């Protein structure tokens, strides 16, 4: 297979990856989690906790980055004519695939973006995670090449396309008003203005560049196109450089999440395969949801539900170990994804 790269697009994708990596490291400096200054899945888990869907107070906060990324992307889409309400492509299946994706993410503690950030922070366990992610995407591309499809979406009403934005706007109001029924941890978050600014710019860049931490590997494996993969590479490099400049590098020392090589690998295999079936990483799903894609919005809600289940049923990596429940969820998730893969192939 001949390797190819689109030079002009690559510059933009690299710029977006650079901003994501540097922005995440700076937000960590200002108070966001270590090696996870921006993480769509972990922040979705925190939102689920804030709304009371799980009870781990430490992981409960209405993360403004998620809201800002979505509204930044929506703004870019409206200005450039890319806002297109669409949906109806295996909607319920996407919810469950998103949920399974979360089981893998929280068995390891890291969505594709946070795997890159953990590597950039100096966490050696991230290498097993990246290998697993690549394996999962590799398996996913075999399914894609053999006809896997969740079906095409159809244009839908503007009300449908804006429902997710309405949900996020309500979350933002709750964050500002802080009613008693919302759980907001006072730990590990950057100042609101910094989170909104970084998230907003990242949303615009993500929408304009199609930055996707799964799509990069998928395109490289499937057609030898390296354009999108540069986003992941530059995310790691820029976060690493920024971490060094800010004195928060911890080279060779594992700080958060699982360090078990086998279970890190398998957990991220689930994430890679599930995300390939969904057509993109959680970050890309959030951007697409902001553009009016209700299937992607459902995938994000599936991630949130999966996050809550992971902490309620002890599937997640907690107290320095992955419980038997978590290991069973990873294996069961992998099996269910294989079944979904086999039964969703086009016959023509």
């Amino acid at each position, binding site marked *: 297979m001949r390797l190819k790269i689109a030079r002009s*697009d690559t510059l933009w994708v690299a710029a977006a990856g650079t901003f994501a990596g540097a922005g995440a490291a700076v937000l960590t400096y200002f108070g966001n989690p270590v090696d996870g200054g921006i993480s769509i899945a972990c922040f979705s888990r925190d939102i689920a906790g804030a709304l009371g869907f799980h009870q781990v107070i430490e992981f409960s906060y209405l993360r403004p980055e998620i809201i800002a990324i979505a509204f930044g992307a929506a703004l870019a889409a409206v200005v450039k004519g890319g806002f297109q309400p669409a949906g109806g492509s295996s909607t319920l299946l996407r919810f469950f695939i998103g949920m399974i994706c979360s089981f893998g993410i929280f068995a390891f503690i890291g969505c594709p973006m946070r795997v890159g950030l953990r590597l950039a922070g100096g966490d050696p366990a991230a290498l097993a995670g990246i290998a697993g992610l690549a394996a999962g995407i590799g398996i996913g591309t075999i399914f894609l090449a053999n*006809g896997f499809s969740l079906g*095409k979406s159809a244009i839908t009403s503007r009300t449908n396309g804006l429902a997710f934005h309405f949900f996020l706007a309500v979350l933002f109001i709750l964050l500002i008003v802080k009613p008693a029924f919302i759980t907001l941890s006072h730990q590990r978050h950057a100042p609101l203005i910094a989170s909104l600014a970084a998230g907003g710019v990242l949303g615009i860049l993500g929408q304009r560049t199609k930055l996707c931490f799964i799509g990069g590997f998928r395109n490289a494996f*499937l*057609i030898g*196109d390296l354009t999108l993969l540069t986003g992941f590479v530059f995310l790691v490099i820029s976060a690493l450089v920024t971490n060094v400049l800010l004195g928060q590098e911890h080279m060779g020392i594992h700080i958060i999440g699982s360090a078990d090589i086998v279970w890190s690998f398998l957990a991220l295999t689930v994430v890679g395969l599930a995300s390939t079936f969904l*057509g993109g990483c959680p970050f890309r799903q959030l951007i697409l949801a902001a553009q009016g894609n209700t299937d992607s919005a459902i995938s994000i809600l599936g991630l949130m539900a999966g996050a809550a289940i992971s902490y309620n049923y002890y599937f997640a990596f907690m107290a320095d170990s992955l419980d038997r429940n978590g290991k069973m969820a990873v294996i069961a998730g992998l099996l269910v994804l294989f079944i979904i893969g086999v039964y969703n192939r086009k016959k023509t």
Partner: protein
Amino acid sequence: MAGKHDGRIMTFHGTYYVLKAEKLLQKEGIAVEAIAAPRHISSDCGICIRFNLSDEERVRRIIVTASIEINGVYDE
């Protein structure tokens, strides 16, 4: 392969169809390659095919004959 100003992009409703179209067209001797969908083009699956403008009529005929649904055709 297509130069900067004479390339055309065709998108489909899934990865499988992009790969199938690429294989079919290559078999017919048409210069075609599957690439990541450029930034200005929307594609459900993130990839598309690129071919020369001069081949467009033949490409369309082959794809339609194979009963593959075209999502969109654009300038590169």
